[in-house]
């Protein structure tokens, strides 16, 4: 039984051409048709993997990441509070739940806002939310250690397509061993792990690191004398680390507060005009006064 189990395990993780036959003792005349049938069964799981990438649904970002974030790996989204990192993570969550996959959101600081996350297209019924009460934990283990432990538990359960680990705004450093355990658990389960933090947390165990910062905040009016409306943010995402492809690329992504195009005048203008990608000085914010 053990060799067969090993053969089946190998078939799940290796690319289709290298799938080993499950029953090598079959007679030659019966082998070929059965191999095709069985390899189709094993490839069925691959059909849902889309080349083992999870897209965000945002064309510039997916192009920057080579098709999306890698499944079975840790990807970091780094940015200060207000940089748009949570919106990008929500885009990946929306894509995962839209695929019918279960996802988890490990929330270290209780910042998960279901109303805006649902408005981003995330199916909240598929999101397993886990948070931690305020205050220091009673045990010596740090909050960050417990956050990673929660992520590890979810990954070990299997069946989740995405696990978002939100460390909050002021996380402490984590142990390398904890990051390694999560990386291994992600690889075993095949889930994409997205870490949201103000700085890189997982070190060498993160396959991709995306640094996000806000270029512009758009406030506009429908007409002169009308109330000022907050449209959204213009974000710049840069690949700081990519073990699976090139690093250093940048992309401009918009994050709108609602989907009504006519109210995104200011934001659309920014997207159409583009942003000088090589600039170190973001444009100053526009000041809107109410008449």
């Amino acid at each position, binding site marked *: 039984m053990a060799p067969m189990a090993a053969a089946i395990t190998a078939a799940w993780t290796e690319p289709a051409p290298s799938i080993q036959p499950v029953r090598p003792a079959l007679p030659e005349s019966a082998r070929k048709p059965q191999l095709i049938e069985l390899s189709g069964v094993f490839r069925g799981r691959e059909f849902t993997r889309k080349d083992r990438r999870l897209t965000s649904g945002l064309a510039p970002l997916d192009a920057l990441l080579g098709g999306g974030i890698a499944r079975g790996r840790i990807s970091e989204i780094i*940015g200060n509070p207000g940089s748009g990192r949570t919106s990008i993570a*929500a*885009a990946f969550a929306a894509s995962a739940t839209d695929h019918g*996959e279960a996802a988890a959101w490990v929330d270290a600081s209780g910042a998960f806002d279901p109303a805006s996350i649902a408005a981003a297209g995330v199916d*909240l019924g598929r999101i397993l939310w886990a948070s931690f009460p305020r205050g220091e934990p009673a045990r010596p283990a740090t909050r960050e250690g417990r956050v990673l432990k929660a992520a590890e538990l979810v990954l070990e359960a299997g069946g989740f397509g995405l696990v978002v680990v939100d460390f909050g705004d002021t996380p402490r450093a984590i142990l390398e061993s904890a990051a390694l355990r999560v990386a291994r658990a992600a690889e075993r389960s095949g889930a994409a792990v997205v870490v949201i933090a103000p700085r890189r947390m997982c070190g060498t165990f993160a396959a991709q690191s995306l640094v996000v910062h806000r270029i512009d905040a758009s406030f506009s009016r429908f007409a002169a004398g009308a109330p000022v409306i907050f449209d959204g943010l213009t974000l710049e995402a840069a690949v700081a680390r990519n073990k699976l492809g090139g690093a250093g690329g940048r992309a401009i992504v918009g994050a709108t507060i609602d989907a009504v195009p006519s109210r995104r005048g200011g934001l659309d203008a920014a997207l159409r005009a583009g942003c000088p990608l090589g600039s170190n000085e973001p444009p100053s914010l526009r000041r809107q006064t109410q008449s």
Partner: protein
Amino acid sequence: MDRIACILVTDFSIAALVRANPALDGAVLAISHSLAPHAELVAVSPRARTLGMRPGMTIAQARAISSELAVTAHSPAAERSAHDALADAAESVSPVVEPGAPGCVWLDLAGMERIHASEAELASEIVRRVRRVGMEAAVGIAAGKEIAHLAARCGGIRIIEPGMERQFLDWLPLDALNLGASERGGDLEMTLARWGLRRLGDLARLDPDAIGSRLGRRGVELVRLARGGSPAPLVARPHAEAFAEAIELEYGIDNLEAMGFVVRPIFERLVERLELRGLVAGDIMLALGLCGHRIASRRIAVAAPSNDVRAMLTLLTLSLESNPPAAAVESIRIEVQPRIPRPAQSDMFLPPAPAPDRLQTTIARLAALCGPGNVGALMPQNSHRPEALRLDPYDPPPPAPPSNGAHPRNGAAASNAARLVMRAIRPAIEVEVMCLRGGPEFVRGANLGARVVSCAGPWRRDGEWWKRASEEARLGGAAGFVRDYYELALDDGGVYRVFRDINSDRWFVDGVYD
């Protein structure tokens, strides 16, 4: 024809003690009402019996036979748990079960011939299931309760074929009835022996009236039994709605580590009983008997029912850590609510989904790590208050099949813009907002101090108007809420959602757009 099985655990009080404390298995053990040397033994373990100890001996006499003798008191809690476990094992075989005296359970075997090839196989299965709950049992199968009970008293597995009841009763030695167990029974046993009666069949040939006048009612019952007994029907017990195990400790426990050692076997026994019935453990009710004859009870909510002993132990430990008992613990009773596990069938060509049993276990472990109120599906509540939330149990829908066999996202155009989400600040932080020229100009609070660069708002939101005229409002309490919301871009780089509570004229920040 009725076929009834009787499950009998001999020396039940000893068996219950050994079940609660497996370390006593094989020990020279006896039960007595007192520990005084002249106190009589009530029950002895098989090992003690082989050494020559018998119920009725004094402790001093028994210790003279073996100095290894351990004498302990009755444990009603352990016996009750063992008897319930025996009934659960029986109910896993047949739905019609009647608990009898402690250590004795009858079950109706009607229809069982469709599941088991023979009654011998069925009886072996019963013995195996009773062993799973920590006891060794004898099984008797016959056409009636009393005959099945007598068959079980013979030990091992004894099946009385239809039509052989008379022959069995005629053969049954009077020794098997254990008439000497009670004081009056001892006289009866000697009398029957003096008369030269050795088997139950010998009694059947005697006149019941004559026996009654010489031996009393007990003698009449014996004659009736010898002639086949009365066909009393099986009275089924209702299905158990709760599973409980209890133990009494020899000394009080006041530290969590020792509690863990004691509680783990309790959970293991409960899980064994639940698994026999195809159930999983839901909420846990814990009752601790404390020094000073006090009882401390608590209910531990389980986010996802499971039979994971480690997760249940962790939940209980967390509960005791957060709210430790006021005194040392002398007895423990744990009751779990049985739940039906959630079935699911996966599909090879759909995205993988968490397996239900593993998901339940994971949620239970997460609840132990994060707290029961911090794991689940967080949903916005149908309320005008933006901060109104509810936490639903996590129960994801099954993966939906892709339309037309294609991937659901195939062909869907990717966009250039994401939807902006907000990071909630819970609870909302009070801030100072300086207003000039009719709008906010500067915001200052804990970890926040910046000039307003851009401002959108105010947007009025109010609700719970019915509270404005309430008694609570008249007394100065909450009178509904009326708030003006702003979206403020500050020069620290963030865009915050800030609101002014009209009732109290205070400012709060409750989110940052990220």
